[in-house]
């Protein structure tokens, strides 16, 4: 009842029983404090499914990292096909200006809680292509949690990144934090999507979040 008059003229004349948004928010806060928060962290730590998003040549080592010799499926991580069902992006090396838009859209299509790993020297600061005219740094496109240096990083390093992310999840409980907050603080350093996707010459509005 309390917040039913949100001020928009369109919403006059509608009767609100309660503001579902605030109620849902409060319920979330309550849920996440106890064991459920811990469960979320635990489940996310052992179920880090990277989305199939190949941005550059480090993809070779990603293939090897989930291959038989290095087998990252041991940590419960399974490469999955569709962004809607995954919770991890691994940015494999250079992100070009043409690809940046796709990376961003894929990130937006994924449900919270979601994490990002940037792989390779190119994703740190351009690497060998630091003076190229067609690249962006991945940290300008999506917020990154773990960086893997190397050009290309060995598959062991990818496994290490998965373990580091698991540690972050278990010790700092970032998964449950993001569910309650529904957004990330470090998004403010990111190039806005209109700039990333502006070259497509179309009105890009893929803001599909329901909350």
């Amino acid at each position: 009842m309390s917040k039913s008059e949100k001020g928009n003229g369109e919403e006059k004349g509608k009767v609100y029983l309660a503001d579902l948004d605030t109620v849902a928010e409060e319920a979330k806060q309550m849920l996440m404090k106890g064991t459920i928060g811990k469960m979320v962290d635990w489940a996310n730590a052992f179920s880090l499914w990277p989305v199939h998003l190949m941005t550059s040549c480090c993809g070779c080592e990603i293939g090897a990292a989930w291959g038989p010799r290095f087998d990252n499926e041991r940590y419960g991580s399974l490469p999955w096909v569709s962004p809607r069902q995954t919770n991890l992006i691994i940015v494999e090396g250079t992100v070009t200006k043409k690809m940046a838009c796709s990376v961003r859209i894929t990130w937006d299509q994924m449900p919270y809680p979601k994490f990002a790993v940037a792989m390779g020297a190119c994703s740190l600061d351009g690497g060998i292509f630091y003076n190229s005219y067609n690249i962006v740094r991945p940290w300008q496109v999506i917020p990154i949690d773990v960086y893997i240096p190397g050009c290309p990083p060995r598959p062991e390093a990818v496994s290490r990144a998965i373990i580091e992310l698991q540690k972050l999840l278990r010790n700092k409980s970032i998964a449950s934090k993001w569910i309650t907050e529904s957004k990330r603080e470090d998004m403010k350093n990111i190039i806005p999507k209109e700039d990333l996707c502006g070259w497509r010459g179309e009105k890009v509005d893929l803001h599909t979040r329901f909350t």
Partner: protein
Amino acid sequence: MVGGEKKLISIQDSLKNVLKDNIISIEQAKGYIDVLVPTDKLVDSAKKLKEFGFDHVKSVTAVDYIAKKQFKITYHISSYLNEELSKYIIGLSTIINRDDPHLPSLSKIWVSAEFQEREVYEFFGIIFDDHPDLRLLLLTPVVAALKPLRKDFVVKEESDNIEVDYAAYNATKWW
């Protein structure tokens, strides 16, 4: 090697026979034979070379001679089906004006040149007339407008001390 040299000379002779007075100059470069023809006779020469047996294009190369104000376009062609010709690579080149770069497209003659001509178009801004599908291939329109492979587009120089200005990165909108 001596036999090879002889053969090269003989292929030069047969090229001269095929192209006759289309040739401005013919020169043995390292690894290929550079045949320079005038722009208006490019299509004619290409047709003759195709009949002679050169059936595909390996590379369409444009070089920007900014000092001379001209582009040199080279079609590196060779043969798959003719085993004798497949040992040679012919560079069919022509020189065009840098200010108004126009060139007849050869992708009707060699389909394998289609994508490569599109690529040259976007990197140099060279327009291929009669190209069936002249669109951008690799770049976004914003980057392609810079015509990046021309010599007057300069990237940041390489240096041993990489300076990273994060504030500048955040401040600039890249496109």
